[in-house]
């Protein structure tokens, strides 16, 4: 119950804060960018048969995955945890009947909900902009699994960023790590597109692109169990490390 209170308070602060509202708009950036590109190259794309829903959606998701998503989750996790220290509010939060575990999991769940909302904004923007562009056709079979995978990967990354945030108590360290993950993901997508176990990749959001690139959901990933276990280990290990650090911390 108290965890729900933490989530609701985070939501309240998010609505009142321009930074948090602005972060939700990141989901719109990618489709808007490609809307511009599709408008400028419309004739050429039609000529080559690429003026399609599938192409537009895959490009938008790819750009979001590789360039924005990791950095965004790092920034969100950093804001969620380090702001309490920056504003000196942690002691007031932890003396309001909330346990440290409730505080931590409330924040984590809030970031998870925010990530899901971000992906939803991406999808919604894609459909609105795609409809406005008058797109049609294309193979959509990999789109939804790719988005699902992307979302799961981002959710798995969140505790890792939390762990760094609680250890360093430095927003820029966490946000910087997010940018670094994005960069690594970009490199992996440039040089490692044939590799099967994307869960091992630090910036695992490259998975989305892999699915799109291969266009064969379930075939390139001939061992999805290994992939899932890897992500689960990342997540659980990070959650335990974060929880232990939070419990042992002396709040000054």
């Amino acid at each position, binding site marked *: *119950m108290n965890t729900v209170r933490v989530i609701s308070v985070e939501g309240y602060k998010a609505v009142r804060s321009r930074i948090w509202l602005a972060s939700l708009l990141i989901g719109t950036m990618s489709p808007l960018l490609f809307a511009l590109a599709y408008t400028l190259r419309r004739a050429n794309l039609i000529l080559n048969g690429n003026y399609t829903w599938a192409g537009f959606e895959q490009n938008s998701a790819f750009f979001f995955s590789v360039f924005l998503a990791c950095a965004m989750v790092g920034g969100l996790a950093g804001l969620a945890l380090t702001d309490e220290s920056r*504003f*000196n509010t*942690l002691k*007031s939060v932890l*003396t309001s009947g909330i346990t440290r575990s409730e505080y931590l999991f409330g924040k984590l769940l809030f970031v998870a909900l925010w990530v899901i909302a971000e992906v939803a904004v991406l999808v919604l923007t894609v459909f609105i902009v795609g409809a406005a562009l008058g797109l049609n056709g294309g193979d959509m079979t990999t789109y939804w699994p790719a988005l699902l995978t992307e979302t799961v990967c981002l959710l798995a990354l969140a505790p890792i960023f939390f762990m760094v945030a609680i250890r360093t108590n430095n927003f820029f360290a966490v946000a910087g790590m997010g940018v670094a993950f994005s960069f690594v993901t970009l490199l992996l997508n440039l040089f490692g597109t044939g590799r099967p176990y994307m869960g091992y990749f630090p910036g695992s959001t490259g998975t989305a692109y892999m699915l799109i690139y291969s266009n064969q959901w379930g075939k390139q990933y001939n061992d999805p169990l290994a992939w899932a276990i890897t992500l689960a280990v990342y997540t659980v290990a990070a959650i335990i490390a974060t929880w232990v650090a939070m419990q042992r911390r002396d709040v000054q």
Partner: protein
Amino acid sequence: MASLLELKQLSKKYGAATVVDHLDLTVQPGQIYAFLGPNGAGKTTTIRMMLGLVHPTGGEVWFQGQPLGDHPERIHSQVGSMVETPGFYPMLSGAENLHVFQRLHGDNDPARIKAVLDLVDLSSAGKKPVGAYSLGMKQRLGIALAMLHRPQLLILDEPTNGLDPAGMSEVRNLLLRLKDEGFSIFISSHLLHEVEQVATNVGIINNGKLVKEGPLGAVLNSSEAQLELQSSQADRLSKFLASWLPQHVPGGTLRQDGNVIHIASFSGDTEALNRAAQQADIPIGGIVHRQASLEQLFFQLTGVGAQQ
């Protein structure tokens, strides 16, 4: 009746340094307990341990006859606190900040927010972002936050920090009003004169150890009295006393302030002193016995006055 708050052998070490050393302390319902000590004595660390913000390395905190153990959050529904400078979300208004913490307490009562803002005289500024508040306004908002959920016990760490004299007086009156309303208050402060006017009980901590504790009156009565002598020949009297005192009042110390000579720790015979001065042909215009103030007692016990 069980004590409201009890610290039993509470200790905190950081590496080799002992910040709080086997502290025993008791707060009863209805008391205004002044927790005094020089900078670095361990006051804030003690308060943080009471609230579960800092983990003790030894000892226990008990609340209403129950040990808190690993569940300090059990105390939070009945304790309101302000530890050092209070922190708030600067982008939110004062009222919104209170709303955030009220929600964390599982409450949603705008009338209560208005009431506590009224109580600390922040009603007119309640809608301004806290980022635009002065330090004094933040202190008052911190006190409002501490009272928000109608706690039984208020723990206030230096609540008059950053306040001007008028603000200090307001806080003093507020504390008395809160006591009348049934709050018990545990307050740490450097402002001994302010505290002396409101406290019912006192605990003095030095180097992590409690050196004195008890009802204010009893603590002051236990302190050493001071004698003040007024003389038109204060210099002569001072020289005379410098030789007379060690023989008749061991431990008494002299200080001259113009025409007035102060003898601290005076436990001798005032009449004998007067007769001796007259025999030495030194006139004494007045003799006043003074009970040590809280400030003087604090200096005696902590040695801070000697350093300053």
